């Protein structure tokens, strides 16, 4: 668990008034193990620990931290934790949970990701969220492969009283393109494409996503990622980003006990913002992303 490592690092520095380089080295090692165990990607961990080490060596002894104007003198261990926390928060910010929903009559959001990551559920959650904000969303069943995928979206649409567009005889690029017109006809102002899950090694399916983008020109392309994902998070995010130039990503299943190290990895490598987090199976369990929330989850 990441929290264990951070506590261990903290304990190493407790009670010391003069921090030597080797104390920092040891504390950094604990943090490194912790971050790797939290599924932060190997090279992202390397970069993070190097930055923290450099800051720590420069600042740790006799430091003051100001809290709401009052200057407090803190021990090196609290200062070390603060350096880690600040570095995590700055890594995962700045906060940008906005969606581009302004410049066309019908704006589009395209949901992409690996199999089972939570795209269909998140499509419904996002539609509900937008409806609450006064938009008129329409969900688009662009997964023509998975058994009962269209049915799944229709059931969710019925539950939320949100229209679902489907045209199973057509190809996903055609379906997404045609949905824009259907939405306009129905008076909807935003469409959300629920695409099929796919792996990055499937050339044909990755190409299909590019074709959907070409055909429907979505303003927003969101990568939906399972918070428990492992070391491949970076390769996966990079590949989706390389092909589609995504506008942001969503981390799902954060209601579990996975530390969500993927959030750091993906953000660090793509620089794209985390827009939302999924916090449960229910359709109201979607929250706008807050870096301090995730940082303190990681720091414990």
């Amino acid at each position, binding site marked *: 668990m990441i929290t264990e490592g951070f506590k261990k690092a903290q304990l190493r520095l407790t009670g010391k008034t003069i921090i030597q380089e080797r104390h920092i080295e040891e504390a950094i090692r604990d943090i490194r*193990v912790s971050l790797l165990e939290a599924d932060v990607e190997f090279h992202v961990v390397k970069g993070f620990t190097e930055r923290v080490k450099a800051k720590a060596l420069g600042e740790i002894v006799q430091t003051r931290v100001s809290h709401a104007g009052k200057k407090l003198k803190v021990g090196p261990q609290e200062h070390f934790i603060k350096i880690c926390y600040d570095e995590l928060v700055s890594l995962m910010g700045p906060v940008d949970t906005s969606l581009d929903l302004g410049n066309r009559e019908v704006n589009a959001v395209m949901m992409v990701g690996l199999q089972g*990551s939570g795209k269909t559920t998140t499509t419904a959650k996002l539609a509900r969220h937008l409806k609450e904000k006064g938009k008129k969303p329409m969900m688009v069943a662009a997964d023509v492969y998975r058994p*009962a995928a269209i049915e799944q979206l229709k059931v969710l649409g019925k539950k939320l009283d949100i229209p679902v567009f489907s045209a199973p005889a057509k190809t996903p690029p055609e379906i997404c393109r045609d949905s824009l017109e259907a939405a306009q006809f129905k008076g909807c102002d935003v469409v959300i494409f629920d695409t099929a899950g796919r*792996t990055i090694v499937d050339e044909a399916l990755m190409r299909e996503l590019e074709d959907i983008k070409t055909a429907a020109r979505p303003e927003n392309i969101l990568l939906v990622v399972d918070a428990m994902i492992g070391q*491949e998070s970076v*390769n996966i995010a990079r590949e989706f980003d390389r092909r589609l130039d995504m506008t942001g990503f969503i981390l799902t299943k954060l209601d579990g006990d996975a530390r969500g190290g993927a959030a750091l990895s993906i953000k660090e490598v793509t620089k794209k913002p985390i827009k939302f987090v999924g916090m449960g199976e229910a359709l109201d369990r979607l929250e706008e992303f807050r870096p301090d929330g995730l940082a303190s989850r990681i720091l414990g």
Partner: protein
Amino acid sequence: FAGGTDIDEDVMSRLEETLVGTDIGVRTAYRLFEGIREKLGSASMKDASSVMRVIRQEIAAILKKRQSWLELPEGVRPFVIMVTGVNGSGKTTTIAKIARRFIGDGRSVIIASGDTFRAAAVEQLEHWAGKVGADFVKAHEGADPSAVAYDALEAAIARKKDVLIIDTAGRLHTKENLMEELKKTKRVLAKKLPGAPHSILLVLDATIGQNAIEQTRQFHKALGVTGIVLTKLDGSSKGGVIVGIADEFDIPIHYIGIGEGMDDLEAFDADAFVDALFL
């Protein structure tokens, strides 16, 4: 990894990078390094390829202990399989694949939709049952999963089916009430047919990192998992977390999932897995 000066620092960090990258996990990687330290003299620990060769052997040995195919014992009918795992891991699709295998071997299979919660879960499984040629016990949305399991077992017995496979809704192991629901289903089955469920499968997604260990721990603690299926190995993830799982838990690894089609299932082979791990 800092312990010994007998392994070259650079070799060490490169090996660690390779191992960690497969999701083996830093702690399991450390254990492997310590384990082979005795096997190799300090001289050969400086050479990356010989260290790697021994690590591969070590991993294969760990996995071979758990390599164990799901076989139907004589005289057990219906053989009851309960399929569990976290959300989206591949349970429903894996059931289709397993059913297809048994049907291909000449067995009669009945599938029950124990997921009465998620949108169109029943329809999804119903589609698969039709495709593979299995009987299907359909549940109403919102029906009690234990009641569905009970009815399915009754049907399996009445229709003299060889195998009953019960699908359950995905759930995170942190949700106590949902884990209790699984325990209740297990109890209900055991009461109806002593010995049932004969197999409790945990479906793990190979793209998941270290959380898979905790998933295994909690599902095993709650139910006594009798077999693991590792899915989505056709993706870019290596599923290395299974090594730590195999090392810690005495749970057979039956199958791997290598695609979305009903034939995309293979019996778990430790040597093939290790080869693919370091490709």
